[in-house]
C-alpha cells in the first residue's frame, strides 16, 4: 500500500469498499423489485405505531409500511449475524460507554425523524439520487458529528 493510502486507511480499504457496495446492492435490490427507497430510521416511528396511539405514528404511510420495515430490519440483523458467524471474526462487543450509546441514541432518534432521514435514507438513497435536500442534510450531520467526536475526544473520553 502506498504511503498516502496507508495514512488514510491504516486498517486497509478493501472491506470498507466491499461492504459499502453490498449496502448499496441491498438498497438497490429492494428498489429494483419494489420501487421503494428503503431507509433504516422510519422503522423507529412506524414500529411505535404498534404500541402508541399518537397520530404522528399512525399515519397511513407508516401503517402501510410498518410490517415490511420490521422484515427489513430483521434482515439487517440476521445478515450481520450470519456474516459474523461464518466468514467474519465472530461475536463482538463495543467498549463505548453505555451513557454515550444511550444519549447519542436519543439524539439520533430525534434528529433522524425531524430531519426526514438518516445515514441510509439521506446518505445512501438521497445522495445516490442527487437529492439537494439529502445532500444538505448529510453535509450538516457530517460536519456536526466530526465536531462532536473531536470535542469528546479532546476532553479525554475514550473510547
Amino acid at each position: 500500500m502506498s504511503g498516502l493510502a496507508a495514512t488514510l486507511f491504516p486498517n486497509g480499504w478493501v472491506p470498507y469498499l466491499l461492504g459499502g457496495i453490498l449496502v448499496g446492492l441491498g438498497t438497490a435490490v429492494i428498489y429494483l423489485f419494489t420501487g421503494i427507497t428503503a431507509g433504516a430510521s422510519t422503522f423507529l416511528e412506524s414500529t411505535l405505531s404498534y404500541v402508541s396511539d399518537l397520530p404522528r405514528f399512525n399515519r397511513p404511510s407508516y401503517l402501510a409500511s410498518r410490517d415490511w420495515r420490521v422484515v427489513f430490519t430483521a434482515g439487517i440483523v440476521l445478515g450481520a449475524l450470519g456474516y459474523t458467524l461464518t466468514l467474519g471474526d465472530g461475536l463482538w462487543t463495543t467498549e463505548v460507554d453505555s451513557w454515550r450509546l444511550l444519549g447519542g441514541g436519543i439524539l439520533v432518534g430525534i434528529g433522524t425523524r425531524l430531519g426526514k432521514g438518516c445515514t441510509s435514507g439521506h446518505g445512501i438513497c438521497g445522495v445516490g439520487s442527487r437529492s439537494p435536500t439529502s445532500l444538505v442534510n448529510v453535509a450538516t450531520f457530517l460536519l456536526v458529528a466530526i465536531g462532536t467526536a473531536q470535542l469528546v475526544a479532546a476532553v479525554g473520553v475514550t473510547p
Partner: protein
Amino acid sequence: MSDRHPLFLPVVFLGGLVFGVGLAVSEMAKPEVVLNFLQFEDFGLLLVMGGAAVTTGVIFAVAEAFGDSAPLTGQDYGRRLKSFDRNVLVGGTIFGVGWGLSGICPGAAYASLGIGNVAILWAIGGMFLGAYAQGYWRDSVRASGANAPEVADD
C-alpha cells in the same frame, strides 16, 4: 396488505440481509470504526458511504433510464425527492451530535446487534425514546396550534 405480490416481503428481507452483511463487512456496525473516522484516524467510512451511494446511484439511474416500473408493485421508477425545510437542518444537526457522541446510526445499530453487540441495545432504546419524544412533541404542537399548517413530509 392482501394485494401485495407474494415475493414482496421475501425481496425486502433479501435486501435487508445483503444490507446487513455489508454493514458487518464494512465494520460500520462498530461504533469505534465510525468514531475513528470522525476523529480523522481512519477514513474508511468514506469508502463505505461513497461505495454505497455510488452503487445505489448507478443502479437507480439505470432503472430510471431503461426500466418502466417495479415488477412487484407496479410503482414507477423515479427520483423520490424529499422536500426541504428548516427541520432538515435542525434534524441533521441533532443527528450529527448524536452520531458523533455514540458512533452509531439506525441501520448500523441493527447490524451491530447482529454481530453480537448487545450493548447497542442502549442506543437502539435511545433511538426509540428520541423518535417517540419528537412524535409526542410534534403532535402536541399541532394540537395546540391547529391553525398552523403542518409541513408535510414523508
